[in-house]
C-alpha cells in the first residue's frame, strides 16, 4: 500500500504546485484618487519582474503626488499577485476593474498573461498598458484598441541585435531558445534575419523552461563551431546557462548574444557575463540628461540601479500622465485612447511615438555589451549601437520588418 500512497500523494501535491498561493497587497485610500491596477507577479520565480514594475510605480507615485497628482488628483496603485498564471491574471484584473474601479491596468509580466487580459479589455472598457510584455502578437495578430505597448517588443529587440550582427565579423551562429512561444519565435525570427544577412545558423535547440543543467547543450554548441550563440532564455534559465557556459570555458570560444540583457542576470552571473552582447529595452547607462537624473532619483529611493522594466514602466506611467492631462480626464477611456494615439513623448532613452495603427510605441533600439565599470558595483550594459525607432519597429500590425 505504501507505494500507491506515495504516488497518490505525489500527484495531489503536483496539482497543488500548479495552483500556487495568491496574496494581495494594497495601499491606503486617498480622496478620489486615480487608481491604476497592476495584476502582476509578486511571488515565485518571475517575481523579479513584478518587483521592477512596483519599484517604478513607487517612485512615480511619490513624485507625481508631491507635484499635486494628475489633474489635481492623487495617483494610487493597487497590486495583485497573479502567480504568473494567465487565468489568475484575468481574475485579478477583473477584480481590479469591477471592485476597485480602475480604468488603467498595467504591470502584466508574462506575454501569456497579457494576451489573456488584453482580450477582456474591450468588454471591460479599460486600457491595458504593457511595459514588460514582449510577444509580437499583442500588437499584431491579437491587437485590440484597448491595448497599448509602451515597451520595446521581443521582435524589436531581436531586430536591434540582428542589425548589429549584420555588420559584425561573426559568421556562424547557434540559436538556443526556451521551449515555448517566446523562445521559438525569437530564434526563428533571428535565424531569418541572419540568413538574410548572408550568414549561417549552424544549429538550434530548445531546452525546456526551468532546465537546471545545460551541460548537454553546451557540448553541442561547442561541437557546432559557432562563433556566436543567440540566447532566448527567461531570467533564471539565462543565469544558469551563462554560469555553466563560463565554467565549461565555452564563453571564451563562443560569444553569448542575448535578446535581452538584464541587470538581474548580470548581478547573479557576475564577471562571467562580461563580454556578452545583446539588446536592451532600456539600458540604464543611456546618456541623456533626463535619464541621468532618473537613475539618480531611482537609486536614491531603492538603493539599486534601474533594470529594464523599472525604466520602461516609469516611462509608461509618465506618458500616461501626459496623455491624461491632454485629454483632461482620467476616467473617460475613449478620450484617453484618442489622446494617446499618434502622440509623442520624450522618454528616458529618446523620443517615443504611439502609432495609431497598432498601438506599438516607436522608440530607439539598442545593442549593448556587458562591461566592467569601476563606477558601479557590478558589470553594466555599455551601448554599442543605437538604432532609430523607424529601423527597429516592425511594419504596422505585423512582426515583420522592411
Amino acid at each position: 500500500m505504501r507505494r500507491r500512497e506515495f504516488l497518490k500523494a505525489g500527484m495531489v501535491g503536483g496539482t497543488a504546485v500548479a495552483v500556487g498561493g495568491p496574496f494581495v497587497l494594497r495601499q491606503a485610500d486617498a480622496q478620489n484618487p486615480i487608481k491604476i491596477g497592476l495584476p502582476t507577479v509578486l511571488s515565485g520565480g518571475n517575481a523579479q519582474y513584478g518587483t521592477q514594475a512596483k519599484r517604478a510605480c513607487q517612485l512615480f507615485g511619490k513624485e507625481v503626488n508631491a507635484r499635486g497628482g494628475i489633474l489635481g488628483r492623487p495617483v494610487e496603485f493597487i497590486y495583485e499577485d497573479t502567480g504568473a498564471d494567465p487565468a489568475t491574471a484575468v481574475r485579478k484584473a477583473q477584480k481590479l476593474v469591477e471592485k476597485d474601479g480602475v480604468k488603467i491596468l498595467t504591470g502584466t509580466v508574462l506575454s501569456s498573461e497579457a494576451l489573456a487580459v488584453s482580450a477582456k479589455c474591450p468588454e471591460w472598457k479599460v486600457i491595458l498598458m504593457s511595459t514588460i510584455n514582449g510577444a509580437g502578437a499583442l500588437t499584431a495578430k491579437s491587437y485590440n484598441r484597448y491595448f497599448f505597448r509602451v515597451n520595446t517588443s521581443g521582435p524589436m529587440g531581436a531586430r536591434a541585435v540582428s542589425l548589429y550582427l549584420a555588420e559584425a565579423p561573426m559568421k556562424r551562429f547557434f540559436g538556443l531558445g526556451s521551449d515555448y512561444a517566446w523562445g521559438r519565435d525569437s530564434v526563428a525570427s533571428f535565424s531569418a534575419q541572419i540568413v538574410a544577412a548572408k550568414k549561417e545558423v549552424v544549429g538550434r535547440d530548445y531546452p525546456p523552461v526551468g532546465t537546471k543543467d545545460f551541460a548537454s547543450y553546451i557540448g553541442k554548441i561547442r561541437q557546432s563551431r559557432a562563433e556566436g550563440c543567440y540566447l532566448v532564455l527567461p531570467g533564471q534559465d539565462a543565469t544558469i546557462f551563462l554560469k555553466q557556459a563560463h565554467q565549461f570555458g565555452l564563453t571564451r570560444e563562443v560569444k553569448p548574444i542575448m535578446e535581452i540583457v538584464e541587470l538581474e542576470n548580470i548581478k547573479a552571473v557576475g564577471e562571467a557575463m562580461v563580454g556578452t552582447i545583446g539588446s536592451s529595452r532600456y539600458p540604464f547607462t543611456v546618456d541623456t540628461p533626463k535619464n541621468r537624473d532618473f537613475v539618480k532619483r531611482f537609486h536614491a529611493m531603492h538603493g539599486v540601479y534601474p533594470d529594464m522594466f523599472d525604466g520602461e514602466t516609469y516611462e509608461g506611467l509618465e506618458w500616461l500622465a501626459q496623455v491624461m492631462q491632454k485629454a483632461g480626464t482620467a476616467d473617460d477611456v475613449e478620450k484617453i485612447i484618442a489622446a494617446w494615439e499618434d502622440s509623442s513623448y520624450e522618454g528616458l532613452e529618446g523620443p517615443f511615438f504611439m502609432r495609431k495603427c497598432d498601438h506599438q510605441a516607436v522608440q530607439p533600439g539598442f545593442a549593448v555589451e556587458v562591461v566592467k565599470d569601476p563606477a558601479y558595483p557590478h558589470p553594466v550594459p555599455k551601448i554599442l549601437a543605437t538604432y532609430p525607432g523607424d529601423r527597429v519597429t516592425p511594419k504596422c500590425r505585423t512582426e515583420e520588418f522592411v
Partner: protein
Amino acid sequence: MAIFVEQLLNALALAGLLFLVSAGLSLVFGILRVVNFAHGVFYMLGAYLGFTTVAVSGWFWPALLVVPPVVGVVGALLEASTLRFIYRRPPIYQLLLTFGLALILEESVRVLYGPTAKGIDPPPLLEGAIGIAGTLYPRYRLFLIVLSLAVGAAVWLFLQKTRSGLVIRAVAQNSEMADCLGADIARVRTWVFGAACALAGLGGVAAAPMTTAYLGMGIGVIVDAFVVVVIGGLGSIPGSMAGSLIVGAAQTWGAYYLPETAMVIMYAVMGAILIFRPWGLFGEEE
C-alpha cells in the same frame, strides 16, 4: 569519444546532485511514511544559506561544512513542532502540512533574499576547467561526482554497520515491533527527518556554484527526485543511487541526442518500472 566522455561526466554530476536530494526523500518515506513535499525547499534553503555563508566568510568550504547541520536542525525542529502530531491521521494531512511548510519557507526566502538569483563562485581550487579525453571539463563538476559518491558510501555504511543504523532499519521495517523492543520511535523520526534535510541542504550548497541559488529550485528538483525514488525503490539508498544515475543519464543523453523528447524519456523509464517492477529496482516487494 570526447563527446561520450563529456556526456558521461555530465550524467554523473547531475546524478550526484539528484542523489543527495532523493536519498533523504526516500529515507523519510521509509521511516516516517510521509511524502515530504517540503524536501526540495530544504535543498533551496541550503543553497541560500550557502550564499550567505560565502558572502560573510568569503570562503566556500565553511559553507559546505556549516550549512548542512543548520538545515538539518531547522528540519528536525519543524518535524518536532508540526509533523509529530499528525502521523496517525490519513496521509493527506501530512501532505498538506509539508506542502504548506514548503510554501511558507519558499516565500520567507523570497522576503529575506529578494526575488533575484544569487550566484556563488566555486572555490579557487575548483575554478575553471581541465582537459579530459580531449575536451575541457569543469573541475567543480568532477568534485560533485566525488562528493556524492563519498556521501552515498557514508550513508550506506552508517545504515548497515552502526547500531543507530540498525535501529533505523528496524523502524523502517516494522515500527510497532521496534517500539515494543524499546526503540524510541519519536526520536528516530526526528533524527532521520533532520538528517534527510541536512542531506538536501548539502545538495543545495553543492549545487549553488553550478546552478546559482534561485527561488523555485526546490520545486524543480523535487519532481526529479520523486522519479528517482519511484525508479530506485522506496527507502533504499542503493536504489536512490541507481535511480539518480538512470534519471541523470536519461536527461543528459536525451538532451543531446533527442532534445525534443528529453523529458519524455525520463517519465517513460518511470512508467516502464511502474508496470514491470512496481516496487522499484531496489525496493522490496510487498
